[in-house]
């Protein structure tokens, strides 16, 4: 089971209390959306799940996050193994300045994966899983930077798929894309849900409503409401949630 269980999570950047007492359970093989106004801590929360916040020196965390029966906030956590298990897609597509092929084999190389599958097969399957294979099968040697933004973002997802993660974190994955590309990435997310648990941070409430099964609303570092997406959007329990969804602030 690849649930993520968050217990009393607090996070500070220096003196700034960015996450306050967040507790939630993110379900396996579902899409969970985190929404809220800018600066509410949604990206911070997402980045806790693969410890990317560790790159910021002043960060301090308390509480527990349990993935596969392990508290990933403990100092003994193997970050390499954690990040292999919990992959991340960023706001701006960030393929490496390498060929398409090398972008996908990068993860295999750094983790020293010697599967029976040849690299060629893994590249093919990874690209197929993000529906890029037909477009790119003759362009594997081409630099990834020459692709369209949508293709780049798909490639970034394919790059994760190649190392067989369990959880995919997506930090506003469509904010750099046009509406048509956005719709296609959303379709892809629903397709990927069969195999992965997905957590997505989004500014776009319609996107959350369209793709997610569960939605969490955050405000000023606190988790205000967390429920079935249908319930959140049709019958929010808290006034703050309702005000945000109806566009009164945010």
């Amino acid at each position, binding site marked *: 089971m690849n649930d993520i269980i968050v217990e009393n999570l607090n996070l500070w950047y220096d003196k700034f209390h960015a996450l306050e007492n967040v507790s939630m359970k993110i379900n396996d093989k579902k899409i969970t959306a985190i929404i809220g106004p800018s600066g509410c801590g949604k990206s911070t929360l997402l980045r806790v799940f693969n410890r*990317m916040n560790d790159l910021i020196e002043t960060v301090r965390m308390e509480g527990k996050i349990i993935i596969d029966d392990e508290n990933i906030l403990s100092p003994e956590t193997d970050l390499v193994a954690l990040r*292999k298990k919990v992959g991340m897609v960023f706001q701006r597509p*960030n393929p490496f300045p390498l060929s398409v092929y090398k972008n996908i084999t990068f993860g295999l190389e750094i983790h020293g994966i010697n599967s029976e599958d040849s690299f060629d097969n893994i590249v093919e399957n990874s690209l197929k899983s993000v529906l890029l294979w037909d477009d790119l099968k003759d362009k594997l040697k081409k630099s990834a930077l020459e692709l369209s933004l949508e293709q780049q973002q798909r490639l970034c997802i394919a790059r994760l798929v190649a190392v067989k993660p369990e959880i995919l974190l997506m930090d506003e994955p469509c904010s750099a894309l046009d509406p048509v590309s956005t719709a296609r990435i959303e379709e892809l997310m629903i397709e990927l849900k069969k195999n992965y648990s997905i957590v997505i941070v989004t500014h776009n409430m319609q996107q959350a409503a369209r793709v997610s099964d569960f939605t969490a609303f955050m405000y000023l570092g606190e988790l205000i409401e967390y429920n079935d997406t249908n319930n959140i959007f049709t019958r929010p329990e808290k006034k703050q949630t309702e005000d945000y969804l109806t566009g009164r602030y945010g």
Partner: protein
Amino acid sequence: MNKIGKVKEFFIEKLIVICGSLSIIFVILIFIFLAREGLTFFKYESIKDFIFGRNWYPLSNPARFGVLPLILGSVMVTLGAMAISIPLGVACAFYIAEIVNPKMKDILKTGIELLAAIPSVVIGFVGMVTLVPMVKKIFHLPTGLTALSGSIMLAFMAMPTIVSIAEDAITAVPKRYKEAALALGATHWQAIYKVILVAAAPGIFAAIMLGIGRVIGETMAVMMITGNAAVIPHTLLEPVRTLTATIAAEMGEAIRGSNHYYALYAVGIILFIITFVINFIADIFLHRIKK
């Protein structure tokens, strides 16, 4: 605008144009002078004998102007200096750009740039007093004035250029590449050598070329510590003489208008071509980064 203002504007504009074109004209004049004096030499001697001649005896009778030992001397000292300064310089650039904390980064960067400000004669003097006796003792040589001593001191002179420009290139690599690598589970080292090094490669290469340019044109330090023997060198542990040192050492005694005098200008042309090509290559790579 009133009349005085217009006149003022006119003169200032012209003044700037004159200053700008003068600097270009001077460079062209120097080049023409170099070409004229140098090419005169080939009226009297064949190019082939000059470039492939193995003996440089400008004062014997008949004089021999084979520049091969000097070219090999320059090449050997430069290669030696590169073998030392490239690995150290690039590693140092990565250390400053990626590993050290911001406070220390400022100190190191300023320190490295200060190193570039040391006059080469001082570097040569320090090398003569400290390094030369050490090389002599360690390798049991009759003299410590060798290509190796020159290489080591020149490596010090190339290092500030290499470190400073390579560090800029590394810092200019977008943070998102590193973030992507780390998020995939790469260690810091893997992110450095598999992603950042690749992305910064053109800039690092340009840094190396500019470092080479500095080394090959350097005169004072090599003249003081390489021994100045114009013979074809076989190992780094022999005295050599470089193209630059030859010009500096002999220009004073060459009679103006003599073959010797023109031969030194011909050596100058060779040096000019070498540095021009190196800077040109560096430039191509620096432009590639800007795109």
